[in-house]
Every structure is written in structure tokens, then in C-alpha cells.
């Protein structure tokens, strides 16, 4: 495999930074070269945030070209559709956590909330595989990103990266009670 591009997106405050950092470290533990960047401009809570991860020896810029990501990961449904439309290559894979943080336009009742069917419809147009992730009994919404990591491990969605690599990465970045709680959620979702 020459290269593998992962585009991550969500809304500021959802924990894209930790998600992306964990994946980067997991890829590194798998022995592959990884580069990337978080792009967060003015976003604090509520703005669109994205992160780029690029795996392989033939990648140069930290930024992925439009319509060329092999995998798009999103923590929010509207952003999942946006990532799919703008970054996923035809035949790529979309994984998203089905949380909804309505954008202003929806709250002002000028556009409709994006439904899961809308995402599926767009995905089938592009020949993309879709993994919708949602964990009903999650006690803390700040762990939605770890549910995603569990899904990536379960379905082996990043080539060469296995469950152990993700666990090692999480151990690098978290500690104490937070680490325990996150590992627990990871184990359950990774199956």
C-alpha cells in the first residue's frame, strides 16, 4: 500500500484532537509512517473542526486533497455528510458517530436536519461503505470518540493497525481513572 489518507471531522468540543492524536500514535506503533495536522482556525465549541492523517512513505503535505481520503471519520452527522461530500474518494469508507449538533441554519429553521438516510443516499452514490456508530448506554458523551476507535479496531478499518496499537496509544495519552473508563468503552465496542 503506497498511501492511506484519513480525514476526521466534527464540531469543536467533541474531542477530535484526542481522537486524531490517538490514531496517529496507533499508526506509529504499527510501524507505519504517519503525518497529519489539526485544522481548527477560530473554532472553539461549535465550529467545524477537522484533522488530517496521512499514512505511508509517499505522502508529503499534511493536508489531504479533496475527494481523495480513503477513510472519513466524523463525530457528528452533519459533518459526516460534509466529509463524505468533500473529502471521501469514490469507494472509500465513512465511519461516523450518530450525534447531532444542529448547525445554525437548522436551528433557525431554514434548512432541515440531515437524516441518516441522507448520509446513506450520498454514500451509495459514491460507492462508499458506511459504518454508523451509536452507543445508547454511553454514560459520558465525551467518550464518543473512543467508541469510534473501538469500531475502527473491530472492523480493522485502518490497514495494519490492530487493537493492541490503539490500546498502547490510549495509554500514552490518558491516565488514571479517565484511562480506565476509556479502555472499558474501547474493549466493549471493539468486541
Amino acid at each position: 500500500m503506497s498511501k492511506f489518507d484519513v480525514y476526521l471531522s466534527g464540531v469543536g468540543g467533541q474531542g477530535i484532537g484526542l481522537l486524531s492524536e490517538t490514531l496517529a500514535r496507533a499508526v506509529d506503533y504499527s510501524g507505519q509512517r504517519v503525518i497529519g495536522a489539526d485544522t481548527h482556525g477560530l473554532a472553539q465549541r461549535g465550529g467545524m473542526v477537522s484533522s488530517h492523517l496521512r499514512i505511508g512513505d509517499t505522502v508529503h503535505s499534511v493536508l489531504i486533497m479533496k475527494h481523495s481520503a480513503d477513510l472519513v471519520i466524523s463525530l457528528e452527522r452533519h459533518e459526516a455528510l460534509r466529509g463524505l461530500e468533500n473529502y471521501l474518494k469514490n469507494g472509500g469508507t465513512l465511519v461516523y458517530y450518530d450525534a447531532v449538533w444542529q448547525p445554525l441554519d437548522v436551528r433557525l429553521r431554514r434548512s432541515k436536519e440531515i437524516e441518516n438516510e441522507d448520509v446513506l443516499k450520498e454514500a451509495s452514490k459514491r460507492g462508499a461503505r458506511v459504518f454508523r456508530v451509536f452507543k445508547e448506554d454511553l454514560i459520558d458523551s465525551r467518550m464518543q470518540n473512543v467508541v469510534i476507535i473501538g469500531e475502527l479496531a473491530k472492523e480493522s478499518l485502518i490497514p495494519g493497525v490492530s487493537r493492541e496499537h490503539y490500546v498502547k496509544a490510549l495509554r500514552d495519552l490518558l491516565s488514571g481513572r479517565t484511562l480506565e473508563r476509556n479502555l472499558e468503552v474501547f474493549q466493549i465496542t471493539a468486541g
Partner: protein
Amino acid sequence: MKNMGEMLLSKEGGSEIVIGNTAIVRAMLESGVRVATSYPGSPTPEIASAIASIPADRNPMYFEFSVNEKVATEVAFGASVNGHLSCVFFKSVGLNVAADTFVQLSLMELIGGMVIVLGDDPGANSSQNEQDNRHYARLSYTPLLEPATPGEAYRMFKEAAKLSKEMRMPVILRLSTHVCHAKEKVHFDPMYSIRPDNTPMFDVKNGPYIPITTEALNMKRRTLEKYEKLREMVEKFSFDTLIDNSNPERGVVTMGAPYLSLMDVLEEVSHKPDILKLGIINPLPEKILIDFLSSHREVWILEELDDVIEREVKALAYDTGLSTKIIGKIDIDDWIGEYAPDKVKRVLSKTWPDMVHIEESVETGTLKPRPAQMCPGCGHRSAFFAIKQALKVTDITVADIGCHTLGYLEPYNVGQVLLCMGHSCGTAAGLSMFNDSRRVVAFLGDSTFFHAGMPAIVNAIFNKHNFTLIIMENGTTAMTGHQDHPAVGRNFNDITLKIPLRKVLEGFGVENIREVDAYNQAKLRKYVEEALEEEGFKVIIAKHPCMLKFTRELRRSGKRLPNPVRVSKRCNLRFVCVSEFACPSYQIAEGGRVWVQEDLCIGDQSCVQTCPSNAIERVPSDSGNGGKSDV
């Protein structure tokens, strides 16, 4: 990496995945930087976060967030002429604030050395423009190095420090947003301990340091002589990379992050051009460039933002009598935006259309952009909601820089003009001239008050201007990541004297001051209505602590947030909470009802007073489904 501080101090060095900003801190420590200063601004504040990770008792560096970039530059300058290697870092437009000081630096004998780290922002991701600070290097005869990756930033910082000490002149390390924030595995050298020397070395014999009358010209001559020497030195530096693709027809001269984008685009090109990647941008390595030009029929200058290198290379070719075809910027688009791979591909397709093919506008999304917005519980939202009710449509509102700039967005639309940090009171004074019919309201944040806001406030008193200033005080520098400012009572290192805004204003002689909690909407509205009817310069301080900072600290201390609110049966769909107050916690459910997204609501209750039907209530403690309850 369990601990960033330990990694930064590690004697052995080793490899670690870091962002460019972190890599620079390791380079500072290895180079023996004693004094580092800054004012927070994206894309550079993570440099300070990395410094903050170093245990204070083992940190050989002094660091401070100064009140603005100018002062930060002066502190670093003072340390340098006293013999200490220093470093100042800030964002692109920060250099405008520091410019008066900065342009003098190259005239001075900086015996300790001084590195200026600039975070330029092509694409204006988090800045009010995308200015190209390479112009400043030329303006001030200052050497400028430009890395493309975190690893290069690390190595070039060390070279910059060495060069600066050797030449006793300032050296700029110019980063751009996605070099600061790029992450990759960087190999760090071992750390050799440098014994700190605290002898104050300042000596006028090293100068002169007073550039007055003929000395100013003598000093300029000395600077230019250094610069001439540097021109020869740069030919031997190892900053430039030649990628030989055996193409005598086409060559590209490029630098920094655009070089990486080009490499990506060329992955799909079979007959690749030769590439000269420059590391030092000012002064340019002329002999290397002449060699490259004369060995190609066509040379494309690929540079982000302005045509700085293009002009120099064209002049060089003219002076040398070279007939190489030099291709630079083609149209206005080439001057705008970040040179990410997509952009470089587009520009390349105009330059050499046979090389790459651009597919006709691939269909892109239908979704509207999701801009940043004020956080749930933000005092600014509460303030804007109240202030808007006190304003007439003809009133003119002057925004300033900070989280409160976001008030210009709908549905608040408060803030109609913005220049830069601290402009609001000056601009408001001008707007109030020959103007009896449209009332003028200026906004200012508390960190910006100290940064650049005070002179125009003094001017308003001194020159008896007629407008209302609303200071949006949230007790921190919120937008750049919650750095302390002089009214907080704590600096980067320690507890310090609190400088309350009100006392400063009173000291200036402002008599008309009102102070109110931004959550008290009725009172704030009344205050604004009153102040707008009064003559002269009036100040309203609308204060409420930054709730993002507050909730983070609450969670960190193991405490729970207050229960969220919910919409009760009394709701009769007036939609004030969603459409006018517009806290993002309020969402539209299927069937058009309103519900509260519990993951977002922090239980601040600043919304309760906005509901005309009294339908917003706190979720009782024993309720499990909370805001998701149906109405």
C-alpha cells in the same frame, strides 16, 4: 509520550511525534534560549503550552506572556543585549504591533542572539488578513528561514540561533499555520547542558545603541555590511535542497509548505520538473539560483501569498543576462489562499497545463459552512442578546478582536466594522464626527484592553469624543486558549498584582462607568439605553467569566456541572431561545418542537430569562432523561 515536559528536557533526545510548535521548544532548550516572550495568537500559542509542560524548577528558560507583541519583542531585545539568547514568538499580524520595535533590531548588536518566530497564516484561518511577513524581512535587512515540516522547524531554529549569535543580528524563523500544527515524528539530538551565565553583559562599547542623528546612518551602514557578508554565507548554508529529476526543460523554485504540496501533486506526474527548495528566503542564495536558472529553459516560482521571490529572481536573471523563461503568478487567484495540494494543483495546471489535469468542478457539498460560535453559557451571548434590544437599527456598532467578535454573526449582528486589535475606540471616535443622528457603540475585550485598547480610550477622554464603549470582560484571553492577562491576578509563572479595568479607567479620568454581570440582561439593557442617551465618552463593563474555562476547571476538580435546562409544556413555540438567543443547546425536534441537547447545555440558565412563555426550567436532580423530555 507520557509527559511532554520530560520529553522536552530529555538528555538522550530520541524520536517523538510532535507538532511544529512543540518541536521548536525542544530546539530552544538545546540552543540555550534564556528568555522567551510572546503574546498569544494562533497559530503559535501551543509553543507556550509546550513551555508550560516543563517543570518550573527544571526549566532553564524564563518565559512570559507580555501585554502585547511590541513589549514582548522589547523584553526579548533587552535580554539579548545583556548577553542572553532570547526568542519572541507571535502570530502574523502580531508583527504589525511589534513593528516599531522590530525594524530597529537589525541596527543593534544583539550580543546574546535573538530568534523571532512568526506564525504566518496563509488562508487567514484565524487572522484578519493573510499578510506575507517576508516583506518585513526585506524591509529590515533581517535574515529569514522558512521550514516546511516540524523536523525542519526544529533544525532550522537551532541554525537560526547559531547564526543570530554569530552575526549579533535578529533572525526570523517563519512558520505558517500548517507547519506550526503539522505533526510528524521528529528526531531530537541529545541535550548538552549549557552552564547559564547570569553576568549582565550590556556594554555601550558593543553598540552604539542610540540611533540618533548621524549614528542612525552609521548603524545602518554596519547593518548593511553584515547583510553583505550574509549574502556570501547563505551560499554555503545547507538550508536548500535540490531535487534532480533530470529535466533540463523545467525547474521549480519553491519553499516551505507549498513545496510539500507540490511533491504530492507530482506523485501522479511522470515527467517531473527539477525542484530547488529554498530554506533561506532572505537574503536569497544568488549563486545557487543562477546555477538553477541557467540549467533550465523554464523556471516556475511557486510561492504562497505574494510575489516576493518571483521579483527577486526576475531581477537576478536580468542582472545576470539570463534568458531563462521565468513564470510567476498568473492571476489574482494565485495571490490568495493557502497553497495546500489542491491549490497547488490548480496553479500548476495554469502554469504547465500538459502536466496535470483538473477535473471539471467535482460536485461538492450542499451544506452551509458551520462557523465558530459562542459556547453554551457564554456571557457574550447573554450580553449581545440584551444589548441588541437597546440598539436602534441606525446605530453603528464597532467590533474588536476576541471571542466577542463572533457577535457580528447572525442572529445577533452586533459589530459592523473591524480592523485589528484595539481599533474599536479610535474607529468609533471617527465615526462619531459630524454625526448627530447615528449613535456609535464600540466593543473591546479585557485582554485587548491592555494589549492595544488603552491609547484610544485615553484619546477619547483627551479629545472629548462622544461614543459608548462596552467592555466584554470574561477574565481571560479566551479565543487563544485561556491565557491570563493583567486583570486576572496571575501571570504565566506566578500570582501577581491584579489590575482591575475599572480602576484603570478611573485613573484615566473616565467618570461615566457602569458595571454589570452580563447574565443580568434587564440591567445591561437599561444601562445601554441610558448610556446611549448621554453625551460624551461612556463605558459599560459587561462581565461574566468565560464559561468554557469555568466548566473545564469545574470538571478537572472532579465536580459535576449543574443540571441542564429543559423546555416545559408551557412552550408555545415563540422560538426566542433558538432564533434570537441562539444558544446551540437549543435544537429543533421533528415536528418543530424545541428540545435541549444535554451534551451541550452546561446548566448556566442564562437562557431562562429570554423565554416569553417562561417555559425554560432546570431538570430536577432525580430525572434521568432531562432535556430530552418530550413536550
